[in-house]
């Protein structure tokens, strides 16, 4: 299973590029690549085979920026930070953002279990129906099933995703969580923060900061169940 930086919607990449062109920021240089690439219509959260480079990056194959060992170290560190920040760990409800956040969240929940000696039950949240860019986009993604095994009311929800990019996925996820009840607080953990925020959203727990060009694609690839690596193309 391949999962990618959630907000890779071609339309948004294109509009973002034209925005930076107007303001004359250094990102202008990559704008051409961005719109050219998106016209090839690569789909986000797309299919298997793990070839993250795809047709949109001519001549540049992907590079692995975090191998499985690195992913495990990052997940363990995030687990420690979550436990440190939330001394009352039974107040914490971990919720993976489907589909990309699920394998990452499993590693983090495993890490927490090794520290505190008990497994937290993991929720899975699909935010497709909460996104601000679903209607009007040609092909609709098929939503993943949402599973919220326990109430979030009065609890501290830790949202877990693979790649933090524009912040729009987290915005949608916060709305979705609040529809399930009023949590005492919401925190955000992600394996990779690649920058380029479009909303005022911060991450509480980061596995690795990876500076990227806006037009690049960052994907977390599940090579086999539980074995992840992070690629940039």
């Amino acid at each position, binding site marked *: 299973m391949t999962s990618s930086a959630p907000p890779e919607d071609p339309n948004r990449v294109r509009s973002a590029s034209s925005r930076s062109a107007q303001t004359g920021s250094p990102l202008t240089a990559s704008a051409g690549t961005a719109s050219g690439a998106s016209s090839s219509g690569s789909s986000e959260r797309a299919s298997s085979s793990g070839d993250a480079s795809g047709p949109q990056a001519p001549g540049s194959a992907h590079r692995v920026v975090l191998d499985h060992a690195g992913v495990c170290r990052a997940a363990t560190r995030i687990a420690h930070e979550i436990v440190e920040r939330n001394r009352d760990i039974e107040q914490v409800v971990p919720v993976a953002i489907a589909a990309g956040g699920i394998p990452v969240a499993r590693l983090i929940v495993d890490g927490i279990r090794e520290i505190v000696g008990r497994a937290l039950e993991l929720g899975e949240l*699909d935010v497709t*129906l*909460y996104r601000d860019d*679903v*209607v009007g986009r040609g092909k609709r993604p*098929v939503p993943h*099933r*949402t599973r919220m095994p326990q109430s979030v009311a009065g609890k501290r929800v830790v949202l877990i995703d693979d790649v933090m990019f524009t912040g729009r996925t987290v915005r949608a996820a916060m709305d979705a969580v609040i*529809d399930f*009840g009023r949590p005492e607080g919401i925190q955000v953990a992600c394996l990779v923060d690649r920058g380029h925020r479009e909303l005022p959203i911060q991450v509480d727990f980061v596995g690795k900061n990876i500076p990227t060009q806006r037009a690049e694609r960052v994907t977390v690839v599940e090579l086999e169940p539980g074995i992840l690596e992070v690629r940039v193309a």
Partner: protein
Amino acid sequence: MKHLLDTETLPREDILRLLETTEAMLEISQREVKKVPTLRGRTVINLFLEASTRTRVSFEIAAKRLSADAINVGASGSSLSKAETLSDMARNLSAMQADVLVVRDRNAGVPAMLARYLDIPVINAGDGEHEHPTQALLDAFTIRQATGGIEGRIVAIVGDVAHSRVARSNIHALIKLGAEVRIAGPRTMMPVGVEELGVKPCSSMEEAVDGAHAIMMLRIQLERLQGALFASLRE
């Protein structure tokens, strides 16, 4: 896929995508807040020119759970009773910036005609003896939930198959999804030419339901028959 007019021309992949989407959305109706913001600010007009409870309420609930604004128009309270033509009324509704039009009518082909007139997506909620595609999608979904799949399942449709739009839509959808479809009923109520689609006509109800995974029982479509096929109702 812009309109949903029938299952006869609906590609198999679209049917499967709709079923999978439904699978994920089932959970929304079990939440405390049964609503997602997907269609916020969109307007859905439900134009029901023939009696309906289940389908009309289902469409209204669907629009509301997706946060769209639903407006329901019936035949008696509408301008149709003032002799405004259907196409004029539909164009007026579309000029009011509706985003989706759901239509039920007693005449076959009305949704398809409106789809040609209008720029917005049209959904057929049942047209005469023609089709009722959303009912067929729901039935397919139910069969899939109950038996774990549709490919290779045996479905018996019993009763007034010839005059039932639900049966017609179901036959097209289920055959595309790989089910074995059997039909049985009084001779005058058997459709003509369905064998070409792969449907198996049976001479008795017992034969049709033998080993079936699902059975659909159809009532007699009295509102469409006008007494032609019976000597009396008691028969």
